[in-house]
């Protein structure tokens, strides 16, 4: 119970969560007046439930469903099948059948996983609207030379309708069923390029991203806190060296550096990416913390503690850190947003691992498979975009509210 | 409305209220006074007594939450009388500095740090329709000379290149650039060292002698008031409680508050042990005391003081005071002397 016991850094660190908790309780009670901050706070809690609890109850839809594919180019995929075989619905149903594919951007990509089970004859469709290729394949289909036809376009109905030749028109309308799936329940947000439910992907797509961003944020904040306080408290050569290093790293454009490193290293685990982001992300905060510690060090209560001969540990953990905790918290949140920004940017460029199906990966596929440019693909493109956007906005709103609550200069005058 | 020819500024029954979250602060109540041409008047009183509010009202620079609930402020120049409170936006802008200049408290930051002193003189002149730069320069240099600065150097300097005392003097020069009739000085010497204070006072006296403007100055430095002022008004809790010639007020105070202020100042003649401070603290202006607002702190207070507030009246000449017990004060002063 003497002063030395409380200056034990390990003990003092244990006190940090307590002070954070106490601050959080006080914060929530004061936050009610700050509507944007409250929105951010509630949003973040919702995101937490959404990404860490909901996935336990909602399984990830990994079942490709031919009926509900959103095609990569002009439109939704359409499946034209012979009337006798109208029950053909999924890729599995097509096993062993002769399937014609109208080859356009992304078409072969989609079919590739099923190439072994399908007998595929490729038909090149050259003209933008219903061309001779499509027509030939429809005739083939009607004559049962192929069992089904995959068309990545919605023009097939138009083609049949616009048919002048009465004989052909009769042949198509008597023999062909067009499968043209719509969106809506049970698929809340529709389906993706493989007919999988997007809503379940959105629910599952945040976990790895948020964890990675947290790792990045924690690592950069801890490094910044450690180096910043060491530089400020020891001063001298170490201080100058650390400051010079910080300035040097700050001059390097961070995102291109990450792009180059990710291009060289080619990560296989997203979490490693978080570590790299954290290792590169500390300098700006380190500089800010250094000057904070420097100014706090000059304050009366710290002067008093020093004149009492208390240890550097005591001064750091008992006198300075508690006075910086809100500042560090705010910057921790901002560093999470940076980590989020950087990792998703890398994923969108295709330089980060895509084995976890995150919002970023959804975006990546949206771009690389062209769904982004499909007017019917709005859901697939917008769902991850909005999920990311609102998460970032919630973080920023929350951090801004914290800033306002803890910085008396920003508070509205009484 | 006509005023006596030598009156430049007359304030009638001015009351100002600040609306705040905790209620209406009655910062100024029924203040009336007149300022004559070429005269210096001092407003004295503790901080928060409403001195600054009165002076801000004169150029209508009150904070946004202030409301003038009653009163008029008349300004006269060349037999033309205007009510300052009724000036339109454009008229007010032209009135400011041209007719009535104000040197704020803490003039250290009164100059825009990114513009040269010259530019700020020119800005001021230009805003009031004076476009001839050479003429502005000539006038400014002579004024800077008057405030005992090196005119050429200061005129082309940036504010940060001047010392605090130099900035204060440059500001005084700027304040009379447009030959206003009234210059308001709010604590003109606070935050300056004692020698600089001395220099500023000398400069002020010089300027007034040569340019013949009227001065209203606000100070809690009574020695400064005694030296500079012709008339003194004591402000307590937003009211003028005593008004009169400087000698009358300082040597024959008729209000216990003024007397209290005077006896709390050390002088060379009086020994330290005779110093007294006024007990208590200034009243809360949201719910001011009934009757005379000074009664809770007053040694002479009795029942009447708690019920009715005394009027500002004169028994002899022009020495006004708002107190029920002027006689008792005179008695007690005689006893001490």
């Amino acid at each position: 119970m003497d002063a030395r016991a409380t200056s034990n850094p390990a003990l003092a660190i244990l006190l940090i969560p307590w002070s954070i908790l106490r601050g959080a309780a006080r914060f929530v009670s004061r936050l009610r007046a700050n509507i944007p901050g409250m929105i951010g706070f509630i949003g973040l809690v919702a995101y937490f439930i959404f990404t860490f609890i909901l996935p336990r109850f909602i399984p990830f839809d990994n079942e490709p469903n031919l009926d509900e594919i959103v095609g990569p180019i002009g439109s939704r995929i359409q499946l034209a099948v012979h009337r006798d075989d109208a029950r053909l619905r999924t890729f599995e149903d097509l096993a062993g059948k002769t399937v014609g594919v109208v080859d356009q951007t992304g078409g072969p990509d989609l079919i590739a996983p099923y190439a072994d089970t399908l007998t595929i004859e490729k038909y090149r469709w050259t003209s933008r609207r219903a061309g001779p290729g499509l027509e030939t394949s429809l005739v083939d289909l009607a004559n049962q030379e192929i069992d089904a036809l995959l068309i990545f376009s919605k023009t097939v109905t138009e083609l049949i309708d616009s048919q002048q030749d009465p004989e052909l028109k009769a042949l198509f309308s008597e023999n062909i069923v067009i499968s043209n799936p719509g969106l809506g329940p049970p698929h809340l947000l529709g389906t993706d390029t493989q007919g999988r439910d997007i809503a379940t992907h959105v629910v599952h797509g945040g976990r790895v991203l948020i964890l990675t961003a947290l790792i990045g944020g924690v690592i950069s904040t801890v490094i910044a806190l450690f180096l910043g306080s060491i530089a400020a408290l020891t001063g001298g050569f170490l201080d100058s060296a650390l400051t010079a290093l910080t300035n040097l790293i700050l001059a390097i454009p961070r995102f291109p550096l990450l792009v180059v490193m990710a291009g060289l290293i080619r990560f296989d685990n997203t979490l490693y990416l978080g570590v790299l982001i954290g290792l590169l992300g500390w300098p700006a905060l380190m500089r800010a913390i250094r000057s904070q510690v420097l100014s706090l060090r000059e304050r009366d209560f710290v002067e008093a503690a020093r004149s009492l001969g208390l240890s550097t540990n005591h001064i750091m953990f008992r006198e300075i850190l508690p006075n910086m905790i809100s500042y560090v918290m705010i910057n921790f949140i901002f560093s999470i947003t940076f980590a989020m920004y950087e990792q998703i940017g890398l994923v969108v460029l295709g330089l980060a691992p895509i084995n976890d199906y995150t919002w970023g990966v959804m975006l990546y596929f949206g771009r690389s498979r062209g769904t982004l440019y499909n007017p019917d693909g709005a859901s697939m493109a917008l769902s991850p975009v909005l999920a990311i956007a609102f998460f970032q906005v919630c973080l920023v709103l929350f951090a801004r509210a914290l800033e306002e609550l803890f910085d008396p200069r920003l508070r509205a005058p009484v | 409305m006509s005023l006596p020819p030598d009156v430049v500024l007359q304030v009638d029954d001015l009351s100002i209220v600040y609306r705040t979250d905790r209620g209406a602060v009655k910062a100024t109540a029924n203040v009336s006074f007149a300022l004559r041409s070429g005269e210096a008047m001092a407003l004295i009183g503790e901080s928060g007594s409403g001195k600054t509010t009165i002076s801000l009202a004169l150029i209508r620079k009150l904070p946004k939450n202030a409301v003038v609930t009653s009163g008029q402020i008349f300004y006269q120049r060349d037999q033309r009388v205007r009510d300052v409170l009724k000036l339109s936006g454009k008229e007010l802008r032209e009135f400011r500095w041209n007719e009535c200049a104000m040197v704020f408290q803490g003039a250290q930051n009164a100059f825009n740090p990114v513009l040269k002193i010259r530019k700020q003189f020119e800005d001021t002149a230009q805003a009031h329709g004076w476009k001839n730069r050479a003429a502005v320069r000539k006038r400014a240099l002579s004024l800077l000379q008057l405030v005992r600065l090196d005119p050429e150097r200061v005129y082309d300097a940036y504010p940060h290149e001047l010392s605090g005392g130099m900035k204060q003097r440059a500001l005084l020069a700027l304040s009379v650039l447009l030959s206003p009739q009234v210059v308001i000085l709010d604590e003109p010497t606070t935050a300056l060292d004692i020698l600089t204070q001395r220099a500023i006072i000398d400069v002020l006296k010089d300027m007034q002698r040569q340019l013949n403007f009227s001065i209203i100055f606000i100070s809690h430095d009574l020695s400064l008031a005694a030296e500079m002022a012709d008339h003194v008004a004591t402000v307590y809790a937003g009211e003028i409680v005593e008004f009169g010639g400087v000698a009358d007020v300082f040597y024959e105070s008729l209000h216990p508050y003024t007397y209290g202020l005077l006896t709390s100042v050390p002088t060379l003649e009086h020994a330290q042990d005779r110093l007294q401070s006024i007990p208590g603290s200034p009243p809360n202006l949201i719910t001011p005391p009934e009757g005379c607002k000074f009664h809770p702190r007053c040694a002479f207070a009795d029942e009447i003081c708690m019920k009715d507030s005394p009027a500002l009246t004169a028994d002899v000449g022009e020495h006004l005071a708002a107190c029920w017990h002027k006689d008792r004060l005179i008695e007690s002063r005689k006893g001490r002397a």
Partner: protein
Amino acid sequence: MATQSLNAPLESPWRDQLIHALRTALTSYTARVVVQAIVTIWAVATLTFLLVREMPGNPIDVLIEQILTQEGISYQEAYDRVAASFNFDPDASLLDLYFSWLGDLLRFDLGKSITSPGTEVIDEIARFLPWTVFAVGMGLLISFVLGIVLGMTMAYYRNSFLDHSLSLLSSFLTGVPNYIWGLLIIIVLGIQLNLFNVGELRGTYDISLTPGLNAAFILSVLKHAALPIATYVIATLGGWMLNMKSSTMGVLNEDYVNVAEARGLKDKRIITSYVGRNASLPLFTQLTIAVGFVLGSGVVIEEIFVYWGIGHYLFQSITVRDYTSMQGVFLILTMGVVFSNLFADLTYGLLDPRVRISGER
């Protein structure tokens, strides 16, 4: 004193004067920031050198391996080929390589592209960089001006409905990553509302036109740059707004603004020369930080809009593992940031007389 100064010219030959001048020059602020900039560029050059050669799975080995398996030539041949494209002598030590790389850099020689043989990296950069500079510069300029105006408006009408809505808006603008804004523009405005044809706006200008100072070409350039510029504006605007608001609120409390009003100055003059000028000072330093950030983020933005600027070139080099191009572009980007910092350091004194370099005294 008098005799000394009379004798002084005789006793101090020109050499002493030169040394004195040099000493003053080197200890001056200008010299310090210039030296700092040079040291930074040198350090980053060293870093890129080590990054490319010493990283796990280092590109040189990967490339040799690639050529070996693809073309079935001898190891020595493959090694020589790689050495040629990386600008190094196969027999030299790491230190020699390092110095020759630095020497090449001083001659603005960034080596040859690996994947398109015969192309100088520096030429490619010269081809792509101007587009990025144009788009980033325009974007930052527009958002900076707009942000200053909006930020001042917020400060003047603080705690009003306008202030609260603008402040919420700024949180949205800054919170949402810039590439997400880019994607939103494409998806919502381009695809869903069909306001423009996304495909037609790819590239930096309509390739059927001949570059030159004609209206059609300039219009085409502006049209192609419009979306990236809009994205840069949207993504950086919120920051300027908030910074300008808090800076303006600080300035509005300053005595000199109060005094300026008492001086009867016109509102326009007070807003521009007294409030605006002082409040925007701190934002100029932040502008250089923004330059670095926006230049960097250009990689994704240009990729999303298929705008052929330096970021697009960097990304293309990475996908085909063109290491010389990669290190060249990265170095150029860093130099861009360093030089914009340097520029800000050297010109800040023109804006704020308080830090003006006292060269003449």
